[in-house]
């Protein structure tokens, strides 16, 4: 950042002068650089990037701004946001939760096995769940008055249990989060697949499916020519998953930024030793953070499986973790801990979903899409390095 002044000093040497004021061009350059730095360090930087990206691409991809596509982008954001919010907590304490993907798969299987309204022996006969939980009549909760609530509770408890196991292993057994959750990813993922022998469990009750698809406010753009407007021309705007995701994000935001617990989370991420010596209940905080992460993954499982109308053990496989961690890191949460905000994650998710959407619209194959996404995450990591350096220059 001192290039301008260095040049000025260089000139001074040639002139033999002892002091030199930076040139006018140097001042303007300095001011521009200051502006750019402000922008880069702003909480809203990724939002600006997303908007700029969106506007720049509209001429090339006219379908991008179609109401149908916008509704699609929104509907893809909500489940990812719920899961990414949980990951934000873990990254903020300097950890990582790779098991989120398998928690999504397992929770969706647990919920579907309990709630399914029917079962098919032809499909499920080899699955350990068949006969034990599932039957021709569906799951044990099918048709019960409070079945839906109990089923959802079971899914969330599944998440909490796995999160507690992760947290205890990291906090009390001092194992590295990467190892613990990688093993979780493999073992829990395999367990979920074994439960159903990799079959999907369906059909699910309508009330459940509503949670992933239900619309509250939908819009139709244009004149009403016919008495009945065709379904596909009505675009969902406010939906149940939106309310759920926004609710989760808001609660998480308040928890992290306003509560005593949130302060503890940042303290553990900034300097664990100092936090311990200052009386922060470090181990309990770590366990709680991993439980929040897995709980969010389970909540994400509700939205994903309801939208799919099936419980699927492989729901969180493949590039899913790339999406989650990528979105959080792009938002600006540091992999080194101590630095993270829910609002950053919201913008990171927006950018990531927008990116996937535009790449799809460009008719790229999923392989190409993953390659581009990988590159973008790398760029985000680079951005984090720049930001950190800028911040250091500002404050020392």
């Amino acid at each position, binding site marked *: 950042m001192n290039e301008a002044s260095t040049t000025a000093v260089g000139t001074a040497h040639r002139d033999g002068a002892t*002091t030199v004021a930076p040139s006018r061009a140097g001042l303007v350059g300095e001011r521009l650089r200051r502006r750019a730095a402000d922008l880069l360090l702003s909480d809203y930087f990724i939002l600006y990037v997303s908007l700029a990206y969106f506007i720049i691409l509209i001429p090339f991809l006219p379908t991008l701004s179609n109401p149908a596509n916008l509704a699609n982008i929104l509907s893809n954001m909500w489940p990812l946001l719920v899961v990414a919010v949980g990951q934000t907590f873990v990254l903020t304490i300097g950890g990582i939760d790779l098991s989120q993907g398998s928690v999504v798969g397992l929770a969706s299987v647990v919920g579907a096995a309990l709630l399914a309204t029917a079962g098919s022996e032809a499909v499920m006969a080899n699955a350990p769940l068949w006969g034990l939980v599932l039957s021709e009549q569906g799951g044990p909760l099918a048709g019960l008055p409070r079945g839906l609530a109990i089923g959802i509770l079971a899914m969330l408890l599944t998440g909490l249990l796995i999160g507690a196991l992760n947290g205890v292993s990291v906090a009390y057994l001092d194992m590295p989060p990467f190892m613990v959750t990688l093993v979780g990813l493999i073992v829990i993922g395999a367990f979920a697949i074994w439960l159903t022998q990799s079959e999907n469990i369906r059909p699910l009750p309508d009330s459940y499916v509503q949670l992933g698809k239900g619309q509250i406010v939908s819009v139709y753009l244009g004149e009403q020519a016919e008495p009945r407007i065709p379904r596909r021309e009505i675009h969902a705007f406010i939906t149940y998953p939106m309310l759920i995701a926004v609710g989760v994000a808001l609660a998480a935001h*308040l928890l992290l930024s306003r509560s*005593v617990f949130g302060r503890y989370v*940042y303290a553990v991420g900034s300097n664990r030793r100092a936090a311990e*010596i200052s009386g922060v209940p470090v181990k309990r905080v770590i366990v709680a953070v991993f439980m929040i992460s897995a709980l969010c993954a389970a909540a994400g499982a509700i939205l994903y499986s309801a939208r799919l109308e099936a419980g699927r053990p492989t729901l969180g496989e493949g590039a899913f973790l790339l999406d989650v961690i990528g979105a959080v890191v792009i938002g600006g949460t540091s992999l080194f801990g101590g630095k993270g905000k829910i609002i950053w994650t919201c913008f990171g998710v927006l950018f990531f979903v927008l990116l996937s959407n535009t790449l799809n619209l460009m008719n790229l194959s999923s392989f190409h899409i993953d390659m581009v996404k990988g590159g973008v995450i790398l760029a985000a990591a680079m951005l984090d390095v720049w930001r950190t350096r800028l911040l250091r220059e500002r*404050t020392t």
Partner: protein
Amino acid sequence: MSALVRFERLTKAFFGVPAVDDVTLDVEEGSVLGLIGENGAGKSTLVNMVGGVVAPSSGRMLWRDAPYAPRDAAAATERGIAFIHQELNLFLNLTVAENLFIDGFPKRFGLIDRHAIEARAAELMATLDLDLAPNALIEDLSPGERQLVEIAKALHREAELIVFDEPTTSLTPRETGRLFDVIERLRAQGKTIIYISHVLGDVARLCDSVAVLRDGKLIESGPTTTFDISRMIRAMIGRELSGLYPERSAGPTDATVLDVEGVSQPGVLEDVSLAVRRGEILGLFGLMGSGRSELARVLFGIDPAERGTISLDGRPLPTRPRERIRAGLAFVTENRREEGLMMEASIEDNLALVSIGRFGRAPLAFVDSEALTSESRDVAERVRLKAGDIHVQPAKALSGGNQQKVVIGKWLMRSPRAFILDEPTRGVDVGAKYEIYVLADQLAAEGGAVLFISSEIEELMGVCDRILVMSRGEIVGTFEAPPFDRPSILAAAFREAA
């Protein structure tokens, strides 16, 4: 003699605030220049400009009368400048010889020529009159020996200007003596040295000339012969220091607050008993390895003790630090960087850390940030913190003395009953030291009990009501009430194993 480096009206401002302000100074070739000043006076910024770490805002530097503007640290190294920092830059898992050659190994048949590097390392050791084996692993060396390897590395790179930044902080007296011998030797070989230190006695003894910085400005400079220590202090802090230690505002009472009975931990502590009374500053003196810091950690519950009881106001303390804090114990660690502060976090967040639970408001435990900010400001004022906006400024941007005030301040926010201060003035300049003594006195005067642990015998004699001496994990002497007898305290500390 001519100047190796000349600063001409050199200025460096960070966001408009000058850290170095219009400094013009010559560093004579082949001499030792003592650079002194309080923390934040601009010493580091000045040498960082020579080292190419930061670029000047205005003014210029000359190297043997030719303009010198290093682009980066590598360019400065190339020119012949070496730094010996407090934190050393050695690879602990490599040998002495490997560390010397880390940026360019001589090779034979594509492999490192081990014979050649060890021969060259031995040669360098000889020029410094050292007896370190070239194939010794750095991790097996003492802090003093590691520092000498750094010096050898500087010589290997044919450095002409060597900057020592607080080199004696982690050295034993004997290692310090050896370091000074080496510095003398370097000077005899024609090397130029800038020596930065808070230990003014060392500066007076070692340096040919002295330069004093205050608030970024060069206040005074000249041959060491014209400076006595009181003149140095006067120039550094800009006023006469009436005494090095404050008057005690109140004396101890008879009520015991912190009571330690027969605490033992095999290999660390042996049957330690002590009692700190209400209003008392109890000094604990010991050399490195005497068990003084280990005792502090056991008392606070960070490390375990096999036997013994520790009680506060007559009640036995629970085991863990968290519970002991709740009971009213406070611990200012000797290691503020690793254990005391969240360096990246704001001063306010650091001050709040211990007592944040108190600011949670029902029903959801949201932090009452207004109350928190106002209490943090009060505490910052009480410890006389010199800082910008404590809400945004990170702890790492503070000088050592002010960082230590933050560490003390975060405990003040909880109003504890007993304080364990472990080396509270380490790496802190004269002015801030005095302020820390004043704080210790206040804590005691307000009815607290203070256990003041230090390896500096003078400060203990200056501020304490009683002094205990530790050696090899045992309390080996108790010295009641000032005036204290320095030689007998030292004799107790140096006692050989009975």
